[in-house]
């Protein structure tokens, strides 16, 4: 006869405020096989856990039910608790009385009745639990970092310096991410390249890091400790082993194309490195615009004018590194942990018809201004109006473009724009003292160390005029741009003839972040930002063990936080990889040999090929489970008509007993 202990939690007033906890305890005492029931103010506290340990010993309990918050919160905590009291950690069941009961129902009587039902289900289920023993599984002590921005770089460096092998995959031809496009950084006005480039070089030279630039993750299989990842290495058409990055090719290439790195303000050649300090500092060929590729396509159809054959880069290359025959290639690698640091992209402001929808050349995004102010930028750091290359005097900044705006589906605040606009105001004054900056804002958000003081400098030293109000319209008025706003502090409409308008565009998840999240089986919200395991307690983990997330891919975040996030994710990975083996979750499937009729429906539905064929002594071929591959989804159990295969932790008996205790009243 088993002796079950039920511990009902008040969780302060979170549960006790609505659910009549003593009534639940009384009801629990009357349930079959329940030998002991008690209540705690905070069961997860040291005192609460102590009371469980003591009760297990004193009452000789062999199964425990904790009726408290969601199992997703403290199932592991309480497994450790019962384990320290000598009980197998899997002889435990959690009843959810908080998130699924007290927090969502106001009628105390009904909530209490529901709480008792939830306890009744947990007791019925735990009665059928058996002791389970996790297995040790080997793990690959290698980590994959997806995304080569500052977050990914920081994570890769930290993991590598802890002695583990890292592969850093970056979609663009060079690492550096959005930060490489910045001129200065707040709040210290450090030159972005000066603090970023050394780290980029470290990544390229670190013995433990393999940098796969111009590559993308295509497919991810397996689970924590044993991931198998297909990485697509796009065709660079340049042999980076022999290429020395001398630059002859991209200086001589005749095809000029608008540069994505310079956000359309500058140009690049068909064979190019995105920016001077690119790492790797070796070019790739843009297949769409390379004249020789156009020539090859022409030869197939022979329609239209015959384009020039070109191949100048091939002729001039001192090390003969141009490799037309190069094909894109998929490499499959094994990893123990994955870090997703795919960063962000800026909001596309052409959605705002009232700001010109991208028609007015002198209405630019803040990132474009960074390129204009950058010494390595298209104007070598001279801030010029894209329309006529003159020096702008009146510069208007508009905050919250693509943020805090339901109309464009971006109700959230992007957190960094107030800070970088203050930076722009300060820097522009340094570039040209006659400049007058106006900043249309709703609320200046400058929380954090040295941030408010920095934002104040924009007004104290640079004389920027901060106008509280959102701009309603911009229109081209001859040479200048008419900006219509309201200064809501004195309540009067205002108008400015601006030479240049800078839109502080918000932060968005990077391109097809949702597709990557689906590949990694992690969840993402409606804006495609990745969802962390717990916003406060587990910010860099995900619900999927072994997959970590960091940086702006998780939500709007500035550089200091991104670097901290990168290191945090690295710490989690290092913690994981420092173990010699992983304890696998014992909740896997198991076959009853005598019942299996060998129809292998289980094998057909298993997503992880964890079902193997085994011949019994009497010559029957039956199914057997490879427990290191099985992840406990249970699809096989439902496909098996004779019920020969069962899932530990969610057995047919356990689930049926939960249903029966609910309906048989």
């Amino acid at each position, binding site marked *: 006869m088993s002796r079950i202990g039920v511990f009902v939690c008040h969780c302060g007033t979170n549960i006790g405020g609505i659910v009549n906890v003593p009534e639940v305890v009384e009801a629990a005492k009357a349930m079959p096989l329940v030998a002991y029931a008690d209540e705690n103010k905070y069961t997860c506290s040291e005192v609460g856990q102590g009371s469980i340990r003591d009760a297990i010993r004193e009452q000789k309990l062999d199964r425990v039910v904790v009726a408290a918050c969601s199992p997703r919160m403290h199932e592991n905590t309480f497994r450790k608790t019962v384990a320290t009291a000598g009980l197998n950690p899997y002889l435990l069941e959690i009843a959810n009385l908080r998130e699924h009961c007290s927090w969502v129902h106001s009628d105390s009587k009904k909530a209490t009745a529901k709480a008792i039902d939830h306890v009744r289900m947990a007791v019925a289920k735990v009665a059928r639990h058996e002791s389970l023993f996790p297995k040790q599984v080997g793990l690959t002590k290698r980590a994959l970092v997806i995304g080569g921005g500052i977050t990914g770089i920081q994570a890769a460096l930290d993991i590598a310096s802890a002695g583990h092998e890292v592969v850093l995959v970056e979609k663009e031809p060079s690492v550096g991410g959005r930060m490489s496009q910045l001129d200065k950084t707040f709040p210290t006005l450090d030159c972005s390249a000066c603090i970023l480039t050394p780290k980029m070089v470290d990544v390229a030279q670190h013995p433990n890091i393999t940098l796969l630039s111009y590559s993308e993750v295509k497919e991810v299989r397996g689970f924590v400790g044993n991931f198998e990842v297909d990485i697509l290495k796009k065709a660079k058409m340049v042999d980076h082993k022999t290429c020395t990055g001398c630059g002859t090719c991209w200086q001589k290439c005749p095809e000029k194309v608008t540069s994505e790195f310079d956000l359309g303000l500058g140009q690049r050649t068909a064979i190019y490195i995105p920016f001077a300090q690119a790492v790797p500092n070796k070019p790739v060929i843009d297949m769409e615009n390379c004249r020789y590729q156009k020539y090859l396509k022409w030869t197939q159809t022979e329609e239209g004018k015959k384009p020039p054959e070109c191949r100048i880069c091939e002729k001039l290359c001192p090390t003969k590194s141009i490799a037309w025959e190069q094909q894109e290639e998929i490499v499959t690698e094994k990893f123990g942990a994955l870090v997703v640091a795919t960063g962000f992209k800026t909001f596309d402001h052409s959605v705002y018809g009232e700001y010109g929808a991208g028609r007015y050349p002198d209405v630019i995004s803040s990132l474009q201004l960074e390129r204009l102010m950058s010494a390595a930028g298209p104007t070598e750091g001279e801030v010029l109006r894209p329309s006529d290359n003159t020096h702008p005097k009146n510069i208007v900044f508009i905050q919250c473009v693509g943020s805090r705006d339901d109309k464009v589906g971006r109700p959230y605040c992007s957190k960094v724009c107030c800070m970088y606009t203050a930076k722009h105001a300060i820097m522009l004054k340094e570039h040209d003292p006659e400049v007058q900056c106006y900043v249309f804002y709703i609320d200046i958000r400058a929380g954090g160390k040295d941030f408010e003081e920095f934002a104040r400098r924009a007004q104290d030293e640079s004389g920027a005029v901060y106008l509280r109000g959102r701009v309603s319209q911009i229109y081209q008025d001859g040479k200048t741009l008419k900006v219509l706003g309201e200064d809501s502090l004195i309540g009067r409409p205002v108008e400015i003839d601006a030479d240049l308008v800078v839109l502080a565009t918000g932060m968005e998840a990077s391109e097809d972040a949702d597709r990557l999240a689906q590949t990694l089986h992690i969840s993402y919200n409606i804006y495609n930002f990745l969802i962390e395991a717990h916003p406060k307690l587990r910010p860099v983990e995900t619900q999927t063990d072994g997959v970590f997330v960091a940086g702006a891919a998780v939500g709007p975040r500035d550089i200091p936080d991104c670097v901290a996030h990168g290191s945090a994710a690295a710490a989690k990975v290092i913690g994981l990889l420092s173990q010699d083996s992983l304890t696998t979750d014992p909740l896997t499937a198991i076959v009853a040999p005598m019942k299996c009729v060998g129809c292998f429906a289980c094998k057909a539905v298993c997503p992880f090929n964890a079902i193997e064929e085994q011949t019994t002594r009497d010559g029957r071929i039956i199914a057997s489970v490879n427990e290191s591959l099985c992840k406990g989804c249970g699809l096989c159990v439902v496909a098996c008509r004779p*019920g020969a295969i069962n899932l530990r932790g969610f057995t047919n008996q356990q689930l049926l007993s939960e249903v029966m205790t609910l309906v048989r009243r």
Partner: protein
Amino acid sequence: MGEDFTQQIRDKAKELLENGAVECVIGYETGSDGVSARPAFIYDAAEVDRLAFDNTCTHNLVKYLLDKKGKSTAVVVKGCDSRALNLLLSERQIQRDKVYVIGVVCPGVVEWGWNKRSEQLQKRCNWCRQHTPVVSDFAVGEPITEEPPAEFADVAEMATKTAEDRATFWRDQAERCIRCYACRQACPGCYCIDCFVELLDPEWVGIRIAPDENWMWNTIRAYHLGGRCISCNECERVCPVNIPLSLLNRKLEQEVLDLFDYKAGMSEDAPAPLITFKKDENLGIAE
């Protein structure tokens, strides 16, 4: 019709038994009432003359192959029975190289009883769209290739009833069920060592013979045949209390056709609908 088919079957059986290709030929012979057919197991070439074929040969002989695992056996199959071969082959219960199929193009089977035979075709032969065996090593009779599209008038008629009437109808059937499991014994698709209904842990269906339990038994038996039932209708034929099991089977057959465009037993390697999926299919739920 009978004489010609019978002779062909006897000759083939004789040949197979004499050259030792098979150890046993499973066919039909005239029953002790001298009128209706019954299954026959011929092990000796000399006894082939017992074999006969006429329009009372109802039984689905493929079921007996389950007891002949590993022994090469010949079996006489009609159009509907033959689909059971593909079902058992795809579920790895029989090996193709151990089975010699004598496929008879079926003229339709008549209603018969002990010592009486009517000329009226059985219900299943009216809705049958597979007179020609889908698998056969030795074909008997002219194959019929033109088959009209399937229709499910009986299912449609039941669907017109209100939910309450339908519930009451099946409750009454459940009341009459005596859980003799004859339907399970006759069905080629039921070959589990322990059927779910007999499990005591977990006790899906209580051992009590009562409407609730019977209702669950009939529902799950039908569900387990979803996408597998070849509508040979043996279950309904053998049911001692005449529960219209064909209604359940054919409802699922129609749904499987509509939802997954799948017909059971038509080929050996097409995966059954409930153990595969298409990513972007729209099944009209949770859309």
